[in-house]
């Protein structure tokens, strides 16, 4: 089935709205949709939603022959599936251009950046190594598959444990989880992808584009970036070139975002590990019971005003503002909601584990300021203050860029910048932000 055509007026409207610094779903230009992470009962299965886009990831492993060139390293395969379930125009079992592109970006982010310690997957050199396979199934496509898929892949890899083996002479025995505890995979660093779509001849970039924004944009940028602000992959696609200045600004914001996302992933992993150690039942069925996974859980208004909070968003916003200590913004007449929407509110409320963390544009690199920005993001509304915010933001970023350019040389122009990390000193130190460009 063909993709629904985009009419001229939709396209023109999106472009014009971006020009006026408005987005159809009421986000700021720099705002991301809420990210939700759930883990399955199996090791290495993760379900990630970014707004309405959702991806299911499952890692599996088997013993196999290593490559002749690298006899003591395991193998990692990443496989993205776009089925008609995600969107009607995707064909099943056929490798579309988009599939290949997403696959390649993810491979660059995870394989080429050497984030997985493949040497630890070696059982006996030249003979048997663990072959990891990450299967990513896109369950719903509402734009920005790549970000969602990268988070899902990272969650699944970080969650996965492969069985222990003992080698006695020629014989290899694989232990069940009852005999010996399975072994987690060693990750040197946590890379995620952060996408932007550019408008106005590459002058404006918006974060986390939805389908309609993706389709009416001129170009898109994908940054594969890890929590230490190191660039693993950069993909520029589309028709227009972007300015080096914008690229630098976006990379800096992407780095902040990556850090937030990785923190969220780590928190989700910790919660899951805690639940498992406390012998609570975990898994997707449990999530369904708890209402943390639901179909089209977020409010489904594709068009909304920034401060629209008549229905679902109400409790959501109150919760996040309470946690940040900001004053409540209450709409008139919110007491008179019918029961039907109350239920929805509850589901929104139960999601709160992660999803009430609203990503607001963060333009400073130190996380100490988080709370301050949180408040700012919560209180501000309306077009006027948005503009002001943005100006401030841009100024901050400009300052920051000037500072960062001294410490962080990012060369522009190239379409791909693989980063070779020195694995020996891949310690956890935050300060280590130097980059070696390949």
């Amino acid at each position, binding site marked *: 089935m063909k993709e629904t055509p985009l009419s001229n007026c939709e396209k023109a409207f999106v472009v014009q709205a971006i020009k006026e610094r408005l987005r159809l779903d009421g986000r700021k230009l720099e705002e991301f949709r809420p990210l939700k992470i759930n883990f399955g009962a199996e090791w290495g299965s993760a379900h990630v939603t970014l707004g309405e886009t959702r991806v299911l990831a499952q890692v599996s492993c088997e013993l196999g022959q290593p490559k002749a060139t690298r006899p003591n390293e395991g193998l990692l395969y990443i496989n993205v599936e776009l089925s008609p379930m995600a969107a009607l125009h995707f064909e099943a079992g056929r490798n579309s251009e988009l599939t290949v592109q997403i696959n390649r970006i993810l491979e660059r982010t995870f394989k080429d950046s050497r984030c997985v310690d493949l040497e630890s997957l070696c059982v006996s050199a030249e003979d048997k190594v663990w072959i990891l396979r990450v299967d990513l199934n896109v369950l719903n496509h509402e734009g920005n598959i790549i970000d969602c898929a990268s988070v899902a892949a990272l969650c699944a890899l970080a969650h996965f444990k492969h069985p222990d083996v003992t080698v006695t002479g020629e014989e290899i025995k694989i232990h069940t989880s009852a005999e010996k505890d399975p072994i987690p995979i060693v990750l040197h660093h946590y890379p995620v992808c952060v996408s932007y779509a550019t408008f106005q001849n590459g002058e404006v970039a918006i974060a986390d584009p939805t389908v309609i924004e993706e389709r009416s944009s001129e170009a898109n940028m994908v940054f594969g970036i890890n929590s230490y602000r190191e660039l693993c992959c950069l993909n520029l696609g589309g028709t227009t070139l972007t300015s080096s200045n914008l690229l630098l600004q976006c990379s800096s914001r992407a780095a902040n975002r990556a850090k937030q996302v990785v923190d969220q992933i780590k928190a989700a992993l910790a919660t899951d590990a805690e639940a498992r150690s406390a012998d609570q039942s975990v898994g997707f069925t449990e999530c369904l019971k708890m209402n943390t996974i639901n179909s089209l859980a977020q409010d489904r208004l594709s068009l909304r*005003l920034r401060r629209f909070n008549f229905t679902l968003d109400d409790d959501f916003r109150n919760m996040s503002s309470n946690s940040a200590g900001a004053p409540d913004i209450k709409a008139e007449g919110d007491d008179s909601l019918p029961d039907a929407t109350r239920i929805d509110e509850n589901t929104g409320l139960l999601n709160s584990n992660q999803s009430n963390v609203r990503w607001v544009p963060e333009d400073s690199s130190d996380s100490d300021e988080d709370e301050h920005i949180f408040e700012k993001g919560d209180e501000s509304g309306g077009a006027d203050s948005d503009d002001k915010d943005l100006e401030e933001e841009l100024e901050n970023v400009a300052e920051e860029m000037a500072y960062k350019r001294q410490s962080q040389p990012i060369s522009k122009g190239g379409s791909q910048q693989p980063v070779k990390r020195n694995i020996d000193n891949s310690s956890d130190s935050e300060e280590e932000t130097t980059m070696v460009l390949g």
Partner: protein
Amino acid sequence: MSAVLVPGEAVSEIEEVAKTKKVVLGPGLRRTNDSVLACKAGVLCKKAPNMFWIDSYQRRYVPVRGECVLGVVTQKAGDIFRVDIGAHEQACLSYLAFEGATKKNRPDIQLGDLLYARLVVASRDLEPELVCVNSHGKKEKLGVLNDGFVFNCSINLVRKILNKNCPLLQALQREMPFEVAVGMNGRIWIKAKTMRETIAVGNAILATEFVSNDDIRKLCENIGNILFT
């Protein structure tokens, strides 16, 4: 009168009525021999004395003759335009089906244009056919829609806002001036003075879906308050 039916279920209630008088079966109901079966999941509705149909939640459009729909021109093929109306098949629209169009004087229509048109042929075996004129050759409100924004919604929402008892459009026009074209195929085109107002209208319409008639007024007031504060 609110039995919930699933596809394949026999509706004995209608069969009872059918014993004494003729009945009219609407969408979602089907007669096989002497029994009436539901072919959609939904709520059984009745209009006295003898009309029955099933009200179901649906997003897929099935063309019906005489309905007005919004479509996007996808192809210009000789004498006809192909228009995507969200149905199983693309609809066709003759270039002569516009007001004042002749063989010499073709309407100016580009690929990707949004059209408001009426279905004149909607049979399950034939390609749906559209016209942009009424039977007197006048265009009325039909034709190309410029600017504004179009979005998709469920068929139920379209029916709800077109219902005479629905206060949405009245309540909303009290807040701001706007234009709207509602296609029965689950697409709504809106245009207001500014981008922000257009988004506000769209927001109000989409939020209406699960709100009762009484609350629609409050919803619109709320939208108005947000817009002007």
